[in-house]
């Protein structure tokens, strides 16, 4: 009996070995295609409970799969992804002993296929440590110069030449914050008195001119949030109380304030509807539609997340769609293709939610993306 059983087991084992279909595996490292997917998104985690451990997750919105990660140092804001492709720029801060020791700031250049560092440019250890803002780091329109906002508390902008991969210099922006590109050789910063500082650069990346516009908004009564989005030649900023301020780039690189328009009707304002969040505006360029996170909260809730995304047509200023979010969101982003996805996330959870823009329907969630996911960047 015992022998019979042993024989049967042996036979079974041999049969199993003969039936094995899986090949032996060599191991290796995954690579990404040269062209990013149209529905990919970088979820930038400023990691507020562990600031030394900033990171960025690359996620495919169609499959909900995580594709890779970049490790981006202390007080991280967001990656800068040029349209020309091939590389990613990441302004990063490091301390030699984690949270102590010598501070080093660099722009790390990663390649988009291997998500590995190609090189770095050392910059002055001054980049602003702030709540994550898109306008903390931007490229000029021709993607030649990378501009980074500094705060020591003196205010300035660091210029990096991306072609030569060299630090060019620093531009004094005293009284004015952040960086908003307006052309291949120009940007503006928002100033505390409601004016803009308009800066033009020469081909070496040095300041060619710096001029202050007149006061374009009342920063004390109804400030504009710093979270503007750009529609072609117009920057759009929402005020705390829900007024849209379009700032048009003129031919000479100047700025012209255009007529403001209300995001909310009088009854909606009375019901305390306001915009709020960390990245509370998004834009779909081809259709001229503006997306904003809204909530009922009233005054001084300009950072509160919202459970609704309202959509306006930029040509008519009419609200054309309301999307109810499954979960509250503090940041939104929209892909720029013909069948766009809406991404939403919040620093209150570590989940990315994906919606179909056309129908407004919730599609899926991607869980476990760091600690406090902040800014969403589509490659």
């Amino acid at each position, binding site marked *: 009996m015992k022998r019979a059983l042993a024989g049967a087991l042996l036979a079974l084992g041999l049969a199993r070995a003969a039936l094995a279909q899986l090949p032996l595996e060599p191991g290796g490292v995954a690579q990404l295609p040269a062209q990013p997917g149209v529905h990919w998104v970088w979820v930038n985690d400023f990691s*507020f409970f562990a600031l030394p451990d900033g990171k960025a997750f690359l996620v495919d919105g169609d499959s909900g799969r995580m594709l890779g990660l970049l490790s981006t140092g202390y007080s991280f804001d967001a990656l800068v992804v040029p349209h020309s492709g091939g590389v990613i720029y990441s302004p990063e801060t490091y301390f030699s002993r984690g*949270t*102590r020791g010598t501070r080093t700031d660099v722009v790390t250049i990663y390649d988009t296929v291997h998500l590995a560092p190609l090189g770095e440019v050392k910059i002055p250890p001054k980049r602003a*440590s702030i709540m994550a803002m898109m306008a903390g780091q931007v490229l000029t329109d021709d993607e030649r110069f990378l501009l980074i906002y500094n705060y020591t508390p003196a*205010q300035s902008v660091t210029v990096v030449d991306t072609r030569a991969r060299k630090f060019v210099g620093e531009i004094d922006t005293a009284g004015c914050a952040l960086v908003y590109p307006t052309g291949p050789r120009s940007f503006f910063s928002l100033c505390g008195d409601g004016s803009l500082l308009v800066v033009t650069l020469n081909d070496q990346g040095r300041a060619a001119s710096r001029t202050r516009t007149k006061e374009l908004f009342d*920063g004390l009564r109804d400030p504009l949030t710093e979270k503007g989005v750009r529609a072609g030649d117009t920057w759009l900023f929402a005020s705390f109380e829900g007024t849209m301020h379009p700032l048009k780039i003129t031919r000479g690189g100047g700025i012209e304030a255009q007529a403001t328009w209300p995001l909310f009707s009088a009854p909606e304002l009375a019901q305390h509807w306001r915009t709020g969040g960390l990245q509370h505006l998004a834009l779909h360029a081809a259709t001229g539609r503006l997306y904003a996170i809204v909530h009922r909260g009233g005054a*001084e809730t300009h*950072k509160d997340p919202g459970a609704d995304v309202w959509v306006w047509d930029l040509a008519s200023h009419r609200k054309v769609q309301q999307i109810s979010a499954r979960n509250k969101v503090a940041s939104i982003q929209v892909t720029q293709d013909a069948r766009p996805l809406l991404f939403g996330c919040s620093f209150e959870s570590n989940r990315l939610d994906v919606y179909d823009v056309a129908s407004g329907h919730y599609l899926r969630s991607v869980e476990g993306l760091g600690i406090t996911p902040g800014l969403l960047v589509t490659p």
Partner: protein
Amino acid sequence: MRNPVDHLMERWARDMARRVSRRRFLGGLGALLFGAATVPLLPVARGETPRPAAGGAADPGDPQTCGYWRHCAIDGFLCSCCGGSVQSCPPGTEASAVTWVGTCHNPGDGHDYIVSYNDCCGKTECGRCLCNRNEDDKPLYMPFKSNDYNWCVGSKVGIAYHCSTARIVGVAK
């Protein structure tokens, strides 16, 4: 003329509603802290272990909660929960001298106090009692009124942010 008491209650209700929504920031602690948010109204919040108030009736509330009156524009981890207090940094950290200064209304004596929000620096985040309230907070282009800057920028030890204090430095009205 409206009844001032009605007006006050309505205002409190509104403030409370706002704070409750902010509490979600604290995830699972939300329910517990919702109780704590009523501290300005009641000496001891229901369902909570009584903690001594910072300064009796003249300084009502619990400095370990977000709803405490001095936290009206704070953004970060409360040093009271991290080994320090509302006015002092936890051991081994450096108080950043450079900071921003605002006013908060003290319901205990009806005065508006000038509050300095000094950050404590040199270690990783404390990670306890996260609180974000934005009364009179302004965008980054008005730095002296913005809680979105890491004020460890002014410390000698570097910009590593640990927690925030809310120190009384004057009386506005």
